[in-house]
């Protein structure tokens, strides 16, 4: 029952990614990329990772798409009738080599849902799963790890968001607004 669903979703995600890369019109590329993000979000939901899915849907499909859209308004559309980008073989070879290299590492990864995988059976995971609720009173273990056990790291993350935001805003300010 689940397998065809995964197969369909993953096919969709991969196709959307390929289309996003090869489409010549950036607007269509952005829409394909949003489709990719939505597909990925649904895959995450099926893999029981709702926090990641919510992030992918809100940031990947939502905010990024909107920011891309308001950015490309300032660019020029390519002229001509071709729908797809011309393929340059140098980069293709490079990407294929990288992809092949990554594929080699695939067999050493644990299977999806493997109960003996280090990430589910490891000492740290077990500790969090057993102690997160008694120690923090928070039911969502992801939030407990994010804001309590790894609170300092999250502060770093928030700092990165602020720093990146300020940097981009300073650059944009030079052009328009305030």
């Amino acid at each position, binding site marked *: 029952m689940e397998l065809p669903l995964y197969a369909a979703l993953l096919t969709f995600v991969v196709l959307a990614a390929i289309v996003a890369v090869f489409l010549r019109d950036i607007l269509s590329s952005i829409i394909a990329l949003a489709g990719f993000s939505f597909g990925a979000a649904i895959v995450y939901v099926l893999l029981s990772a709702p926090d990641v899915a919510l*992030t992918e849907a809100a*940031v990947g499909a939502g905010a990024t798409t909107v920011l891309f859209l308001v950015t490309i308004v300032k660019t020029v559309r390519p002229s001509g009738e071709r729908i797809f980008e011309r393929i340059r073989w140098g980069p293709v070879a490079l990407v294929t080599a990288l992809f092949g290299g990554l594929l080699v590492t695939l067999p050493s990864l644990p299977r999806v849902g493997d109960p003996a995988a280090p990430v589910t059976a490891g000492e740290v995971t077990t500790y969090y799963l057993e102690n997160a609720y008694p120690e923090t009173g928070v039911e969502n273990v992801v939030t407990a790890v994010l804001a309590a056990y790894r609170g300092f790291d999250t502060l770093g993350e928030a700092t990165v968001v602020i720093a990146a935001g300020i940097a981009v805003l300073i650059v944009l300010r030079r052009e328009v607004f305030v």
Partner: protein
Amino acid sequence: MSGTDNRGTYVESTIIMTTIRLVSPFVFAYGLFVMFHGAESAGGGFQGGVIAAASLILVAFAFGIEPTREWITDGPARTAIAVGAFTFVGIGLGGIVVGGRFLEYEAYGIHHGTKYGIELVELGIGAIVAGVILSLFMNLAAGFTEDGGEQE
């Protein structure tokens, strides 16, 4: 869009305006829910902040970006970023002040202190993220409704 086809960037549409007038308060409330309820269900500050910002971006799409930018100037977004950052760091440093360690929520000695601490931190993160996304959008989109898509 410049170049070959020159569509107007903003067309006033009753359907879109009415829909968004109805929907955006709920989207904003959902953003707050995701922020507050991150402790019990999926979500948290990062996601909630984006959703809350999205509700205002929806308004910008429906009512035109320039009017929205006049309504939400840079000030509130900047204030949200600063307040969020100070909340997060303040809660962290407060732990030291009351005799614990940095970000040690238990040191406050409140019942369920950790939980409230986590929720406040999530709200802080949400304010930061919403502020950054909103000001990025407003600044990127600055100026293109006035002269039909072209600006410079």
